[in-house]
């Protein structure tokens, strides 16, 4: 193991150097892509080669990357690494002479230790891809568009697929056992029961129930009756009211022929009719009923809780073998029950935690972002194993060190829904291309995915406002700051606009002077954008100009916005500010707004 450990260190050094090289090369590639391909630019990019040769000092200065010691059995990964080595070597050889040391070393290291395989893959591909993008001679691009598309399809299908068998919740083992037990008892012994699973959205409640149903079906299904129970699913969000749930039950039991008139029947009556009809049938008479009720607390909001009462009553009275499995996000489901319903409920509640620690959470997040390895044999195009490994390594890297980690940890500490992280990753997955075949999450892109969590202020459409509309917002803010008026009417805002804003001593205030009707139109647009709204419904009875409005957001954010915009306008890199046009984005308009914002506070 001592030899092996040395090899690991070497591999790490090489890998890190390679990572540096890759990063450098990436930067160069970006430069080459951004600057127009003039003749002057390209030789420069080629003449200043990134420090491709492993720099011992730099490599040793960086701490070796932490790796999990056992990701797979050594033998198999060893074999796999060797199998992967040959295409990689080819790619590295083709990638240009300057890369040879890194690539060779990387491949040697990969051949020695299986652990480093993924990382070196990443660097090789990265370097090769960068070399290609930079325009160095390459016979064949290392990653084709088809391959990228395949990864995108796989990952998007996993992210958006909803129910994921790919990521069973390891924390739900106890709940799985309980559900499985209950289902087994009802199928084998005809024991009725009821249970409610609680857990946050995305914790895998439905997946868990589905899996248990599948295993019980597999265990007890016979050739004559492949399903040992009658399954009825009810969704609280859509089928909560009595009629809709009866219709849903009838449809799922295929009793439409027998029951045609269901509109005017009481729920209890309908349920008993349904049960009687099932009893009549020869083939299904002995089968137990399994109700899977999602968002069960929605049924508790219904008048008299008819469905819950009747189902719990059936369970209690053992009239028919019946199991009720409810799922909900509310842990206080029992409290919402009426007394007579509560007394019939078995009070079996099992909680399904989403994640207890960040490691399991990140692991869950990662599993759906990665492509299956080895790639699933599918019809048509197969995914290049080397690319798959490199991609997965990039995902792992982003989750361990990159910007994605911050996002994931923010989600972990707030909602614990892996879906939020996946949604935030969609722009990055869509951005994959042959030039950039690996997942790179730069920063939480504004407006996408996680916006709702982290960047709520910037969701306000303040940037889209015309200058006059901004002035009116700031006038309303003036009222709040100076006059302590939380609510304001158009007349008040117009008064401030006329008497305070237009009196600002600036050079060109004439462009800000408008008729009242024009100001009114700008005010109405603020209402349309729901930046301001009627303070209460009674205001509708007031004359239009005097209806009281209130901010529909936390108004001190305005200060930050307009003062920041001014700073941004002064910066050199602000695109709109450079236009020189008065109005939006122009530095002059921003100056006036910022001055007005400052003066009025």
């Amino acid at each position, binding site marked *: 193991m001592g030899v092996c450990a040395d090899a690991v260190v070497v591999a790490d050094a090489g890998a890190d150097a390679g990572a540096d090289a890759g990063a450098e090369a990436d930067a160069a590639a970006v430069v080459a892509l951004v600057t127009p*391909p003039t003749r002057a630019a390209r030789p420069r990019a080629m003449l200043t080669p990134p420090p491709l040769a492993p720099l011992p000092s730099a490599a040793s200065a960086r701490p070796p990357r932490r790796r999990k010691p056992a990701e797979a059995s050594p033998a198999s990964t060893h074999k796999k690494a060797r199998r992967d080595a040959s295409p990689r070597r080819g790619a590295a050889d083709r990638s240009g002479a300057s890369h040879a040391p890194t690539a060779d070393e990387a491949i040697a290291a990969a051949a020695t230790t299986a652990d480093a395989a993924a990382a070196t893959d990443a660097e090789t591909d990265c370097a090769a891809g960068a070399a*290609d993008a930079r*325009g160095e001679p390459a016979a064949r*691009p290392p990653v084709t*568009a088809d391959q990228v*598309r395949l990864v*995108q*399809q796989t990952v*998007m299908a996993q*992210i*958006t697929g*909803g129910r994921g068998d790919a990521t069973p919740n390891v924390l739900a083992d106890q709940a799985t056992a309980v559900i499985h037990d209950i289902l087994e008892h009802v199928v084998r012994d005809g024991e009725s029961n009821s249970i409610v699973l609680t857990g946050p*959205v995305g914790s895998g409640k439905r997946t868990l129930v589905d899996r248990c149903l599948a295993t019980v079906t597999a265990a007890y299904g016979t050739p004559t009756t492949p399903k040992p129970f009658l399954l009825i699913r009810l969704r609280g*969000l*859509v*089928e909560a009211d009595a009629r*809709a749930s009866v*219709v*849903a039950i009838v449809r799922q039991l295929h009793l439409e022929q027998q029951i045609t008139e269901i509109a005017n029947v009481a729920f209890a009556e309908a349920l008993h009719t349904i049960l009687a009809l099932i009893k009549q049938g020869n083939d299904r008479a002995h089968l137990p009923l399994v109700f899977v009720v999602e968002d069960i607390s929605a049924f508790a909001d219904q008048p008299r809780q008819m469905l819950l009462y009747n189902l719990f009553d059936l369970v209690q009275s053992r009239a028919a073998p019946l199991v009720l499995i409810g799922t909900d996000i509310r842990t206080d489901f029992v409290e919402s029950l009426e007394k007579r319903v509560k007394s019939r409920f078995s009070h079996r509640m099992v909680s399904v935690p989403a994640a207890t620690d960040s490691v399991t959470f990140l692991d869950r997040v990662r599993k759906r972002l990665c492509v299956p390895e080895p790639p699933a044999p599918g019809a048509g195009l197969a995914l290049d194993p080397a690319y798959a490994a490199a991609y997965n390594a990039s995902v792992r890297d982003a989750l361990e060190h990159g910007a994605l980690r911050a996002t994931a940890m923010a989600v972990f500490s707030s909602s614990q829904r892996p879906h*939020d992280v996946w949604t935030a990753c*969609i*722009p990055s997955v*869509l951005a994959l291309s*042959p*030039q950039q075949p690996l997942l790179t999450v730069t920063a939480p892109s504004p*407006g*996408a995915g996680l*916006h*709702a969590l982290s960047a*709520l202020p910037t969701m306000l*459409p303040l940037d*889209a406002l*015309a200058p*006059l509309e901004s002035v009116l917002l700031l006038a309303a803010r003036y*009222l709040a700051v100076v*006059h302590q*008026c939380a609510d*304001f*009417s158009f*007349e*008040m805002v117009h008064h401030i606009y006329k008497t305070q804003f237009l009196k600002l001593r600036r050079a060109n205030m004439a462009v800000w002077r*408008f*008729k009242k009707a*024009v*100001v009114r*139109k*700008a005010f109405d647009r603020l209402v*349309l954008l729901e930046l301001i709204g009627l303070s209460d419904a009674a205001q509708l009875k007031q*004359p*239009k*100009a*005097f209806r009281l409005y209130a901010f529909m957001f936390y108004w001190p954010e305005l200060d930050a916005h307009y003062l920041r915009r001014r700073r941004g306008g002064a910066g050199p890199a602000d*695109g*709109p500010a450079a*236009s020189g*046009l008065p*109005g*939006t*984005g122009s530095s002059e*308009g921003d100056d006036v707004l910022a001055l007005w914002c400052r003066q009025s506070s």
Partner: protein
Amino acid sequence: MDAPSDAMLPSAAATAAGPATPPPPCDLFPGREAEINTLTQLAQLPAPKTIFVTGPPASGKTAVCRAVFPEPRHPHVDAARLHVPRLLFESTLDALVGHTLTAENGYAPAYRCETMADWIFLLGRLHAENRLMPGASGASEPQRFIVVDNAHLLRNFPDVLTPLLRASGREALPLSLVFVTHLPWSRFMAFSPDVTPLIVPFTAYTAEQRLAIMARDCPPGEDPEFYTWFLHILHDVFCVPCTDLNELRYLASLLFPQLQACIASGAATREPSDRPKLFRHLGACQHAAGERLWTRELSRTEWAQLAPAATGAAEMAAPVSTGRRLLPLPYDTKFLLLAAYLASANPPKLDAHFYTRSGPEDGARPRALTGRGRGRGRGSRGGRGRGGTDAARGAGDHAAVAAAAAAAASTLAQMAPHARGPRAFPLERLLAIFHAIVPARGTKRGVAGGVRSSAGAVSTHAQVALLIALRLLLRAGGGGGGTGPGAAVGGAALRLDDVRLKCNVPYELAREVSASVSFDLDIYLVDG
């Protein structure tokens, strides 16, 4: 040497798109490249079940969605047309199965679908029976998108919006919903607090992008450079009140013919040397007429009638159709309206000073005490033959009012009239002021004044009811019955005896009305 990587892009696009919908050309939508790219890729990859497209009004959301998700294949629904959720369900099902409403089928939908549960059930059945996509281009692009425009209006149906946002029941279907709205996600969060969809933000256009898009409206045969020059000037003026692209394009389409007419008349040419002259001409148009077009005071048709005749700014500023704007009220009703305006504007404690008749030398004219005409510098107080004691009392009150106003200069009290709006007043006060300000006909018509007091009372009440029905007066309480407009019009529920009213007329309109009956409104108004 960039050739390999460059050449890869089209091929990638070709293989990805396949024979199905080609991605919409980005040059149709300047500045929307990133959004088009995202949506196109979503259309080709397994997409999230809920996509939330948001961005300010007139930022190309709907147009881009129409291009990326073309109509016959992907249903488009405008939530503004849905007054009941049933229409959403039935129209989407119609579009998904390719059913069109015709006279033959009696304009009946393909499926009758009242509830969300029915909709989900039908979608699932259609999908299972493989009828969801007739005429599909094969398995290469199996998913379909339902684009809901103006999605914020769906918030009226929370029972529908929540399951739609959370994709309840659609998990297994290749069917995504695209919500298009100008509101941010935070306004929808209450409907789906724990599930956040994929948000595709459309940013506001920059000034350059707006100009580039407007430049594509250049009339055929026009010099594009000249048109761009025109747009710059227009944009400079009108982007301050509003940056809405549709508004700007509307104005450009109306104002540019003015410039063309000016050139056609030979007053100027398109040469750069004549630009200052054209600029002056355009400036006159913009300032005189632009704001009226902007606020829709002038409609497009009226502008078309006015514009060819008008040569200078004065004509354009002149009112076109005064009849439309002035209230066609009877003479006495106008005074009633003015009395209501005064009753709403002035505090009741000053009524005595305004409307008492102090002596025979005053005649029928009431006296104005603090007529400052809302800061218009009229200062028409005194000079009306005021008695000595009255003058002293009036001066004292005026000083008190002024002192109070000064003390409250920077406090909420100064804002009070703006905040409060019109005061509510009882009917008696309205009638008292009305009788005080209406020109006493008794002086001219002899005994007619005596008749007014008995028969006139009935007609005055009828006029008050008329003003309430016209919503020029609002009921602020009392009067019995409901408070809706129907109750006011119905009259049966309205008891005028104890009603409290408010005047719903802005100052500008009140002035117009007073001018039409040659009544000086300003001298009666207390400022502040």
